[in-house]
């Protein structure tokens, strides 16, 4: 039942806000609203009961194993929420004077330094509000760099065929043409093909490493050489940073610019699809172009003061991308996560994420599932392909994914990357226990048996959720995006 269906005209059972209407007759009559909006009129209890019960219809990290590949669904420390909810942090106005902002600014400065260290980069701007905005900022900086050199011929961005969809979309938003680079059967970029695509028209390449194939791009140094020699720059999509956190720095691989997904690698909660944060890091070349604002430090450690760096400090900046400085509250959470982990903890992230993925890959292979890249090490994630089951049993990747829900396991990412047919992209993360993974594997083994015995049943899954499979075609054709009183 929708909250609107519980609304009754004139119901006002709350104590939340002023009970008195104000006299607004001083405002011009034609600018004053005539008809009140159709917001629900419910009691506090009804609102709480409704949304509490709605929440119970979700899977989440706090309730289930959630091995959604490429999304890094790891534990979100509650301490980070507590810290971000402290009154001086929660209630600080974004335009409060620096005299009343030293606590916040110092956190942001320290986070910049931490992110520079783990990425091997020279400068960080925290402002992008999501990975995709970080990508935008990164490619915009590449563009600004070439423009600053009057190198106007560079009109193309290269993107491996396995890339996240945001990569080509971003390149287009920045005014580039996109050229796809093929990936070979081992999941590596086809370097020979790459060489034929590179030239004076190449502004850069957007890659992630490990790639979305769940393997480490072994020829990354060669690729960097090819691109750099052609005058292009390398963009690192930080979506998969969790795989190598503390183990390999993108700056050392030759990347010039990158973003990080703090809601992945730095464990800020995903919030049902956001907010996240997508800081960018750059090497020396791109420092002058970083988006504003950035936090600067003055004075010694003991008597440091912090201030905003803006357009005046960074005259070549690509500009600001939000009204203030981006998703500050998320940045605070990431800072807290970083100081809770510390140096040693940071090293362990990549190690145990990799251990978990390789363990699951090996176990699933033994249970009869086909790995997409059986001869490769898994990184923090890996791919199985259900082509055989689809062909032999008529049970495809989506059917298995839906059936997993009945086993109280969140489904992995399905049908991505596009180049592996009927695939599951599985990412356990380092915060899941062996037992949690074993349960998932047992569920998969059981579904395989079910698929052999009763494929029809598996195709009808799920059976235990609030709804059965939904009619997506109807959703798109008979577009119903807002409730209307009937």
């Amino acid at each position: 039942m929708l909250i609107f269906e519980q609304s009754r005209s004139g119901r006002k059972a709350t104590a939340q806000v002023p009970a008195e209407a104000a006299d607004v007759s001083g405002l011009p009559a034609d600018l004053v609203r005539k008809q009140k909006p159709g917001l629900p009129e419910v009691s506090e209890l009804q609102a709480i009961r409704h949304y509490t019960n709605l929440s119970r219809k979700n899977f989440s990290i706090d309730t289930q194993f959630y091995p959604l590949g490429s999304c890094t669904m790891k534990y979100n420390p509650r301490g980070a929420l507590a810290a971000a909810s402290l009154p001086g942090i929660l209630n600080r106005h974004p335009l409060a004077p620096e005299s009343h902002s030293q606590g916040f600014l110092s956190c942001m400065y320290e986070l910049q330094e931490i992110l520079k260290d783990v990425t091997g980069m020279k400068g960080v701007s925290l402002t992008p509000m999501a990975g995709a905005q970080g990508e935008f900022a990164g490619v915009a900086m590449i563009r600004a760099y070439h423009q600053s050199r009057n190198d106007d011929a560079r009109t193309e961005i290269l993107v491996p065929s396995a890339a996240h969809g945001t990569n080509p979309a971003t390149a287009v938003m920045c005014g580039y043409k996109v050229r796809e680079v093929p990936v070979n059967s081992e999941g590596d970029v086809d370097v020979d093909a790459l060489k034929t695509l590179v030239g004076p028209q190449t502004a850069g390449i957007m890659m992630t490493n490990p790639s979305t194939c769940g393997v480490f791009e072994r020829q990354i140094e060669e690729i960097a050489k090819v691109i750099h020699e052609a005058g292009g720059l390398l963009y690192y999509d930080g979506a998969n940073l969790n795989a190598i956190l503390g183990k390999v720095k993108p700056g050392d691989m030759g990347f010039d610019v990158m973003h990080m997904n703090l809601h992945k690698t730095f464990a800020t909660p995903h919030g049902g699809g956001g907010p996240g944060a997508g800081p960018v890091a750059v090497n020396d070349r791109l420092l002058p172009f970083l988006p504003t604002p950035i936090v600067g430090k003055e004075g010694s450690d003991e008597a440091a003061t912090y201030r905003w760096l803006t357009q005046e400090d960074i005259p070549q900046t690509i500009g600001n991308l939000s009204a203030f400085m981006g998703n500050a509250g998320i940045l605070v959470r990431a800072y807290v996560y970083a100081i809770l982990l510390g140096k040693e903890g940071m090293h362990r992230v990549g190690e145990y994420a990799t251990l978990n993925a390789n363990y699951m890959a090996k176990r699933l292979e033994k249970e009869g599932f086909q790995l997409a890249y059986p001869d490769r090490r898994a990184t923090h994630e890996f791919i199985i392909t259900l082509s055989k089951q689809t062909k032999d049993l008529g049970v495809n990747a989506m059917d298995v994914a839906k059936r997993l829900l009945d086993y109280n396991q969140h489904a992995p990412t399905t049908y991505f990357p596009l180049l592996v047919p009927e695939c599951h992209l599985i990412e356990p993360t380092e915060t899941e226990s062996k037992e949690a993974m074993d349960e998932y594997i047992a569920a998969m083994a059981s579904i395989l048996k079910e698929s052999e015995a009763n494929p029809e049943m598996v195709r009808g899954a799920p059976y235990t959720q609030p709804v059965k499979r939904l009619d997506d075609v109807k959703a798109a054709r008979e577009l119903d995006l807002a409730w209307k009183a009937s």
Partner: protein
Amino acid sequence: MPFIPHTEQDVQEMLETIGVSSIEDLFDEIPPQLRAGELTQVPDALNEMDMMRRMREKSAQDEGALCFIGAGAYEHHIPAAVWDVATRGEFMTAYTPYQAEASQGTLQLIYEYQSMMATLMAMDVSNASLYDGASGLAEAVLMAVRANRKSKSRKILVPGAVHPTYRSALAAIVESQNIDLVEVPWNAEQGTTALDALKAYEGEDITAVIIAQPNFFGQLEDVHALTDWIHQQNSLAIALVNPMAMAVLEAPGNWGEKGADIAVGDGQPLGVPMASGGPYYGFMCCTQAIVRQMPGRLIGRTVDLDGKPGYALTLQAREQHIRRSKATSNICTNQGLAVTASTIYMSMVGPDGLANVAGQSYKNTQSLVELLCSIEGVGRQFSGHTFHECAVKLPVNAALVLEKLAEREILGGFDLGRVDASLENAMLICVTETKSQADLELYKSALVDVLNEIQG
């Protein structure tokens, strides 16, 4: 090991299963020269207790002042229940609802959000949210360019009375899209976008025009006349509004004869804390006619195999993960949790509560302005009507006054000299329902003190 559950025995068993002898072996495909050394800028780990102590100290540094700054972020009372419910694990730690059957909570909530935002804006539809108001404005401009097929110019009129960092974010984001952003000056007397200034463009091919209500100076624009003029030019009207104000002010869907085509803005006033600037969310509504050009996630109501109502992501064909380089935007998330809070907020306060919050904010602002204007040399910068922000003219430099007010723990407003040198003696103040009469009088007496100090 914080957050890593592996016992020694677990690790051994797992390594055996994999068939390697150490975790290190799992990195054997990575060229050794790429392996990172010690991290030098990451501090040693703190436990939660020590972390909280450090954060409490940092928080305390920034606490305690009375805040009269608005300028795009607004202090409203947020009912305790809002974030208690929004931070339930099932909302906070879920991801984008790719598996609809296991995400009906988030999906239905967003459908309700879309419904609320549409009725609040008096528009047909809303998306599931964008990053924030400023980037949302840029998305609205890009959407207008896609939607207004009759226009070839890609020319957008942007009033100077639109929030300055919204304008600069807009410029940065559409930078490479061959869009012509034309600034329309504001009227120095009224602080509004004069229809006269627009008339200069009459007859030109203009793709869309932005109307801010209230505008950055808190002034009310003549939205009906502006909207009608825009439509006469076959141009699209993009409304940029404070959603809280829409509980009292006429909503974009009812502007002029036909209503605005796109309404956009920042949802922060609806239950989202100021939090140093984010996470907020950008909302976007539009008419049914152009919904397929809308960027961002959309949740649709449909039915399941049994015919039972359910909710799912829809029109995904517009999005980057399907359309890749041909997507309407590279956006791949909404600001789910902030939207969750706003939806609960709107449910709890209801239409009348929202009107009361907006109305009391208006009333308090007018009261403070009256109080301040009773001080010698202080007056309104502009004539015309204001909502809950107002530009106040001082006899001396506003930056200096604000600095001295801050020393007295009053964040007195936004220095308008930062926006326009002609306004260096003006500050933009904002008062919401959170301030008491005593607060307003405290402000006045502090300002009297400060002016005496400066003027000797």
